[in-house]
């Protein structure tokens, strides 16, 4: 029983790291840019498929983990510049409609390019095997996933907290007009943040493929969960998104041991509970 629990805890950490990466991206986009990005999961799926192709063509998994998020990020820059920025004045409804439309476009593009069947990728050979936890083998690759996720989150956090550019981004979350009054081109700043946000979703997608494979609609569930995590953690709070993501992942994994039917509902129950006690979220600033 204990080994099972430990393994589920570790699996929760894996899942939580994926949620944390995606939600950290979404909290930047939703919290700072005020764009309800319903295409977040679609960028995640795109990251997964691009990573698969890069790994297959180049034979390098490491390259796939670098190139796929960058490609997703660059696409994000374009989507923000050509579409979302122009819709900003029109309001949330149009941005929601646009991002929902983008989901369909990205999904169908995936079907066109890669086919509608699910993708299955073997874990790279040098990650074969795992750590013995009691009677169960916990794959090395999942530990690697957790490490990459943690390092990425730490790097983004340091960039946000310790650099001048990061301070500008945090200031922009609080008061974009005032940032503009200091001579900073907020539109360009927002474009970079949007790119960074979807790149984090792309990285999450790239990392999950060897564990769960890929499906064109794999991002649908993640979009909803990311919004829940962002709300639990507090809008615009990076630490909140990371803590919330890990919390939701571990809760889901442990629920599947004790009472599987509740593993999906539990997340929303947790959100409701947090909102009742702290309407601004765990680390919310507004």
């Amino acid at each position, binding site marked *: 029983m204990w080994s099972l629990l430990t393994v589920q805890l570790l699996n929760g950490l894996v899942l939580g790291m994926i949620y944390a990466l995606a939600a950290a991206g979404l909290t930047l986009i939703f919290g700072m840019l005020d764009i309800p990005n319903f295409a977040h999961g679609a960028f995640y799926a795109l990251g997964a498929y691009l990573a698969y192709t890069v790994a297959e063509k180049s034979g390098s998994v490491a390259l796939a983990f670098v190139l796929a998020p960058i490609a997703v990020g660059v696409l994000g820059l374009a989507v923000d510049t050509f579409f979302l920025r122009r819709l900003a004045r029109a309001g949330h409804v149009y941005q929601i409609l646009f991002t929902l439309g983008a989901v369909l476009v990205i999904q169908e593009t995936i079907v066109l390019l890669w086919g509608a069947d699910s993708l299955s990728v073997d874990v790279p050979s040098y990650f074969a095997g795992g750590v013995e936890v009691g009677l169960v083998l916990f794959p090395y690759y999942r530990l690697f996933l957790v490490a990459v996720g943690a390092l990425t989150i730490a790097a983004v956090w340091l960039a946000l907290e310790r650099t001048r550019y990061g301070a500008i981004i945090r200031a922009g979350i609080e008061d974009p007009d005032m940032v503009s*009054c200091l001579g900073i081109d907020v539109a360009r700043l927002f474009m970079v943040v949007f790119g960074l946000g979807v790149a984090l979703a792309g990285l999450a997608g790239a990392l999950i493929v060897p564990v769960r494979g890929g499906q064109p609609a794999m991002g649908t569930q993640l979009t909803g969960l990311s919004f829940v995590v962002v709300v639990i953690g507090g809008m615009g709070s990076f630490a909140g998104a990371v803590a919330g993501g890990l919390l939701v992942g571990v809760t889901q994994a442990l629920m599947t041991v004790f009472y599987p039917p509740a593993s999906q509902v539990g997340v929303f129950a947790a959100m409701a509970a947090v909102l009742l006690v702290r309407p601004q979220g765990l680390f919310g600033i507004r």
Partner: protein
Amino acid sequence: MLRLDDVHSGYGQSQVLKGISLELADGQVAALLGRNGAGKSTTVKTIMGLVPPRRGAVLLEGRRIDGLPPSRISRLGVAYVPEQRRIFSYLTVRENLSIAERPQSAWSVARLCEMFPRLAALMRQRAGTLSGGEQQMLAIARALATGPRLLLLDEPSQGLAPSIVDAVVDSIAEMRSGGLSILLVEQNLEVALDLADSVYLIDQGNIVFSGSGRELRMRADLQARYLGVET
């Protein structure tokens, strides 16, 4: 330095400014006085580009700046200290200044520390934890860090204890002697008359008086009518 020509501006359906014209000479301080809701803050926001004017022109050193975004206007040498200070409360004091600082600015963070010794001691603190007076100092210092030629100051004395108002007035006087042009919005008549070379009275979106501080000091009728000053 700055000229407004028949500027109309407002928010949504409501027209706030109904043809404002005013002028500010290089190195001078002009005060904009009036009751709450008269259009003082909207005038300043319109100059900064936060509220786009619907008619009329805003000229900075002869160049039209109306219609430009705030970031461009800031780059042209205009800095803004808003009414509610709007410091970045989750950033440290140092971060508030460093994101505003420009290399060519005459007001480096080091110089600002000399000018506001109180801030120098609080550099690592979150700006949101500062007192009202300290936040006002920070808002002014942040504006100066961009190296402006024209400073828009919206009610710097609002809500501050008298001793702190004096400190703010001193700092404004110091900026003026440094050659900065200042448009000062005030409700506090004494503060405005102390500092200003010229005075504009605004009421319901129109300029109803312009002249020197001395003239306004003698016009008790105007003070009573447009500022609600008891005589």
